[in-house]
């Protein structure tokens, strides 16, 4: 026997002893290795699951912060800080004091780097405003309404090598160092400032007057310097204005007052357009959100409201209250928007700090500041830190770990009212060209598209595959069955990219041109088949003997081809009679149904094609596996074969058929290439069979290669993958358990 290892003889020599020990060792080593190999299959599944969870998990972590007192700067001792700014790396800060001292300081140790004394004509400074479009651009106003525009800029120098990076700050005065009289010398309290590439708006409020200066910017072609072409406006207002803000498009001036209202003034002529009641309490602070569309207003009870202009059916734009954020306890003192996301920080007068995100509608952090309410507060440009200055020269830095504030259960799965939308909607739109874009990460339309595609595929595949399986297993001649089964296996093996390509490039245009033929086929095919079957059952001519029992499908092949051809011929008259000449025009004009070339019908057909073999072979195995004694018993009692199939065989096999359907559904849900190629990939939510969809899987395939590693977008795509994984996990595990149960039951029969 060659199976037995050649040994050197059975005499008990040392060599043979060693050889036997070696055999034993080898046996136990391989046993262990093979066990490890077997169990590592479980490890693989668990690894996939855990890795997906590991990537997705940070999405739902709350923000964390680390508070750090920076110490005390003697230069600020005798004044109140009005403004603070910080650069990208959080190494250098910039401050403006009420006494007109401005300058840069080192974050680490607060050493003053540079200091300039401004000479405001009115003596002391009153207010500082920042342009939301440009974090470094600042307007400074003194008590009598004189304004100076300046910019704090930072350059990073690598002159001493990459490791010795140095930040070089500088102050620029883009429109000269002269002060501009905004309020004709009257006392002014509040200031708002907005600037973009073409225009510059300054607004200030005194006790009972509103002053606005509108300027258009002109660039000198030779020097590249900007000059301003300005126009001033003024109007009387009721006292009690608490904050001013200018919309990013330069059309509206928002003012808040002590009655809890937001007043909307046109920047054309300062007419009052609208008054919105936001809160029962006085509003204490307001600011624009990144992008200049949303206004944030905080009241004296700590409630922050988000408002933005909404266009109604009549194309009228009105400011509307969108959502409110709770979490603070006292009057809101500071509202600071982030520079790159739609998040903001708010601080109340009792020293509570809260971080919010508007799209997600959630609070991500709420903490009490150890040193109380600061006099000035600023976000670092990357929103990874908040710097606060206190009266008396103290400063503190709060480092933030807040990677994914835009993701919450509600922003992923519920309707969200996005900026520039007229109502809350489900939208997936993950990226756009500009920085100020509000990402829309609603997975609902994608999940909807996935289910819709799967449903239409199942609608096509289930009847065909189940009926086919029942026939193949129960009625078909064994010799034909041996041909059919491999054909179905080949069908399962066809690459889906081929199905998708044919569906997208050939079938979709074909359906578009022959829509009526599809309708006529639905009618002609079953009727024609039954008529033929009836005729054949009663036919006794010479060909009858050609088709043996169990070979009917072969007989039907030419019949079906002929019927399909007939329906193509019938399509034209059908269109003329019922659909006024052209079915697609009829659809769009009479029914108001829009038609996409790559639609659910095409996907259902193509993906059905991919699902049929899966269901077919499993269901066929199930029906075939039903013990013969059951059907014999039924037939012996006088039931017809059809009765036996429906009443005895199918109920017995039904758990396995159910699990076949589940696995087919799992396949349809996860299929990528077909939907990618045969739909338009637009994330619409519409059950119409003539419209496309975007599925979770196709969305991953399209967007994954472009998403930035560890960004929210990346993790949300992983979440989509996790959803797919879990769905198929549940479906497959369920199906497998049903099958194992069934196997036990059969073995007892």
């Amino acid at each position, binding site marked *: 026997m060659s*199976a*037995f*290892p050649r040994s050197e003889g059975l005499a008990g020599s040392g060599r043979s002893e060693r050889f036997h020990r070696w055999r034993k060792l*080898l*046996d136990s080593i*391989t046993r262990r290795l*093979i*066990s490890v*190999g*077997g169990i*590592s*299959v*479980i490890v*693989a*599944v668990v690894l*996939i699951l855990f*890795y*997906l969870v590991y*990537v997705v998990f940070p999405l739902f972590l709350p923000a964390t912060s680390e508070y750090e007192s920076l110490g005390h700067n003697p230069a600020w001792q005798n004044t109140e800080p009005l403004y603070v700014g910080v650069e990208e790396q959080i190494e250098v800060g910039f401050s403006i004091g009420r006494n007109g001292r401005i300058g840069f300081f080192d974050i680490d140790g607060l050493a003053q780097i540079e200091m300039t004394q401004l000479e405001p004509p009115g003596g002391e400074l009153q207010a500082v405003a920042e342009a939301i479009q440009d974090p470094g651009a600042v307007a400074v106003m003194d008590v009598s309404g004189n304004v100076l525009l300046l910019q704090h800029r930072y350059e990073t120098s690598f002159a001493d090598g990459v490791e010795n990076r140095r930040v070089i700050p500088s102050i620029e005065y883009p429109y000269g160092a002269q002060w501009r009289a905004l309020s004709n010398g009257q006392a002014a309290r509040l200031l708002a400032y907005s600037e973009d590439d073409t225009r510059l708006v300054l607004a200030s409020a005194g006790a009972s007057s509103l002053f606005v200066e509108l300027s258009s910017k002109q660039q000198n072609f030779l020097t590249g310097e900007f000059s301003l072409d300005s126009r001033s406006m003024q109007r009387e207002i009721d006292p009690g204005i608490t904050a001013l803000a200018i919309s990013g498009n330069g059309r509206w001036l928002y003012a808040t007052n002590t009655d809890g209202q937001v007043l909307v003034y046109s920047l054309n002529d300062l007419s009052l357009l609208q008054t919105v009641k936001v809160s029962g309490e006085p509003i204490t602070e307001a600011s624009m959100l990144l992008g200049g569309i949303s206004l944030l207003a905080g009241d004296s009870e700590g409630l922050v409201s988000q408002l933005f202009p909404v266009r109604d059916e009549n194309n009228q734009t009105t400011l509307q209250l969108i959502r409110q954020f709770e979490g603070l306890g006292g009057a809101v003192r500071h509202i600071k928007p982030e520079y790159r996301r739609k998040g903001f920080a708010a601080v109340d007068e009792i020293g509570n700090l809260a971080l919010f995100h508007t799209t997600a509608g959630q609070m991500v952090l709420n903490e009490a500041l150890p040193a109380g309410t600061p006099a000035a507060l600023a976000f670092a440009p990357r929103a990874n830190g908040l710097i606060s200055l206190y009266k008396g020269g103290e400063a503190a830095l709060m480092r933030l770990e807040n990677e994914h504030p835009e993701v919450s259960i509600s922003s992923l799965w519920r309707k969200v009212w996005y900026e520039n939308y007229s109502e809350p909607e489900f939208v997936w739109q993950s990226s756009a060209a500009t920085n100020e874009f509000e990402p829309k990460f609603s997975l609902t339309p994608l999940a909807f598209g996935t289910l819709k595609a799967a449903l239409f595929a199942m609608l096509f595949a289930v*009847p*065909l595959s189940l*009926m*086919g399986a*029942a026939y*193949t297993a129960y009625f078909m001649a064994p010799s034909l069955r041996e041909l*059919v089964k491999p*054909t179905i*296996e080949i*069908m399962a*093996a*066809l*690459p*889906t*990219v*081929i199905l998708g390509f*044919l569906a*997208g*490039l050939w079938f979709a245009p074909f359906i578009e041109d022959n829509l009526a033929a599809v309708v006529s086929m639905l009618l002609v095919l079953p009727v024609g*088949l*039954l008529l033929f079957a*009836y005729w054949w*059952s009663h036919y006794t001519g010479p060909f009858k003997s050609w088709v043996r029992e169990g070979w*009917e499908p072969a007989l*039907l*092949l030419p019949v079906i081809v002929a019927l399909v051809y007939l329906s193509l011929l019938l399509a034209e008259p059908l269109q003329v009679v019922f659909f006024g000449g052209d079915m697609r025009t009829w659809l769009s004009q009479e029914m108001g149904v829009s038609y996409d070339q790559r639609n659910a019908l095409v996907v259902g057909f193509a993906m059905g094609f991919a699902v*049929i073999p899966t269901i077919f072979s499993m269901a066929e195995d199930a029906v075939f596996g039903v013990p013969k004694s059951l059907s014999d018993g039924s037939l012996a009692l006088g039931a017809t*074969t*059809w*009765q036996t199939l429906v009443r005895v065989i199918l109920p017995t096999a039904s758990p396995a058929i159910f699990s076949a359907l589940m696995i087919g559904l799992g396949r349809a849900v*996860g299929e990528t*290439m077909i939907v990618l190629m045969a739909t338009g990939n637009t994330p619409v939510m519409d059950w119409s069979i003539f419209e496309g969809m975007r599925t979770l899987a196709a969305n*991953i*395939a399209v967007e*994954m290669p472009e998403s930035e590693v560890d960004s929210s977008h990346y993790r949300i795509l992983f979440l989509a*993958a996790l959803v797919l994984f879990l769905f198929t*996990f549940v479906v*497959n595990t369920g*199906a*497998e358990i049903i099958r*194992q149960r069934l196997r036990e039951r059969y073995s007892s029969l």
Partner: protein
Amino acid sequence: MSKVNSWIKSGAPWVWLNAAAVSCCILLVLGLMLMIAVPGFGHFWPSKIHEIVTQDDQSRTVLAGQIQDREEVSAQRLRESGLSVPESYDSVRRYLIKVGNRDLSGQDFVWVPELIIAQRSQPLALVVLEREEWGNFYGYLLGLKEDNSLITMATAWEDFEQRLERTSSLRDQISDLEKGRIGSINYRLERLRLRERRLELKGEQDPRAFAEIEEERVALGEEYELLEQDLLALNEEIRRDAALMRTASGEEVEIPLYTILDAFKPNTMGLWGSVGHFFKKSWQFIVEDPREANTEGGIFPAIYGTVMMVLLMSVFVTPFGVVAAVYLKEYARQGLLTRIIRVAVNNLAGVPSIVYGVFGLGFFIYTLGGSLDRLFFPEALPSPTFGTGGLFWASLTLALLTLPVVIVSTEEGLARIPRTIREGSLALGATRWETLWRTVLPMASPGIMTGMILAVARAAGEVAPLMLVGVVKLAPSLPLDGNYPFLHPERKFMHLGFHIYDVGFQSPNVEAARPLVYATALLLVCVTVLLNLTAIRVRNRLREKYRGLET
């Protein structure tokens, strides 16, 4: 009436409908094959060139081209587009004609309604030129030019063919030089740069090490200079000849011979000539590189990439899958654990392939690959070596994806081996491992083979995960070439399935690329179907073999 009733009562209509469902499935498969095969093969068939004279109200034009498609359009639509169609017509047949000459007319294809065709002929002298750019040229050969002096002869075509042969052999030499030797020098220079960077990172102080590198670099530079001179001379040579052509509309153009890849006269070809041409074109399609943004030429790199990926994948998946199956069938006690493993296997089989892609991208590429780069290839950073998609990670991802296929099929192979054989071996004193290695596995090898073949077929057709883990539309170099260390598992590669998706859906000129997509699809379908049929046959043979032993 009772006849009908009793027929319905017997359930026969239902049985017939069920039979029809089977027929539908079969027809779907056959129809799909036909749908791909006809245009796929048609791509290589030299269809005749028609010279068509069209005459409408205003003008008379002459065009030449191959008929690509025909369809019936409603007369209404044509009237709307400005053509005067007589009232008696309800619909008009029109032809899609590939007229080529994109550099002259700006479009490859024109629709010509049959109505305006005044005259149609197939002149024998019409020539198709396949060019490196601008697609095909259709026209007549007028004469030849050598070094800008015109030579026209009665035997211009024979002379033209000879000169074309000469340029194509020169072209081969040039591409040998550029891709082979100069490419190899560039590759070695890049390796030198990395070696130098590695020394710098290590903080190497010894100037001799750097001097050595510099010396090698100078030597390579000298070698390069020499080759470049050769290249210049060859480039000079190849530009010698030009063909003087006339288009169907009478325009005369001069086409340098080095831009012409192939020339033939389909109208003179008989059946055998056409068949010969068909095989020649099919062969070129398989062995040539793609041109013009993948819309022309061959698909060799895609085939090569697919094969390499599949081979590497088999190396990973086979041992792992076989071990898992052996554990399940031979070693494990059947119980909860094996049930869980079976559930896991089923899950692996059921998880959508795109999820494997996501996992491969995140875990293999960014996590594992990123760490590998930091540990072993710091000199190449910040450009990633293994930290980006490539052949290796794609193979590994697909190995995971095809694992259940191998496990299931190996298990089936093992299950068919009768117990008596194992018991016989054990009774003779063999250990379990010896029984497995010397009797069970050899007998189960057809099952393992089946699994491998099915896995390969699956991997060859899978696209979605590959899009995330390293497949590209155009790879600059092959993953296995003549440069040390020969196999480059970190390189990106091309893949047949992705090629279909990319050319069919992402290419700028979908209409022109469509025949090529069909041909690629046909190849892919043939490969998968053949592999599957082989697997089915191997499996059936295995079943037959052990049928007698089972009882």
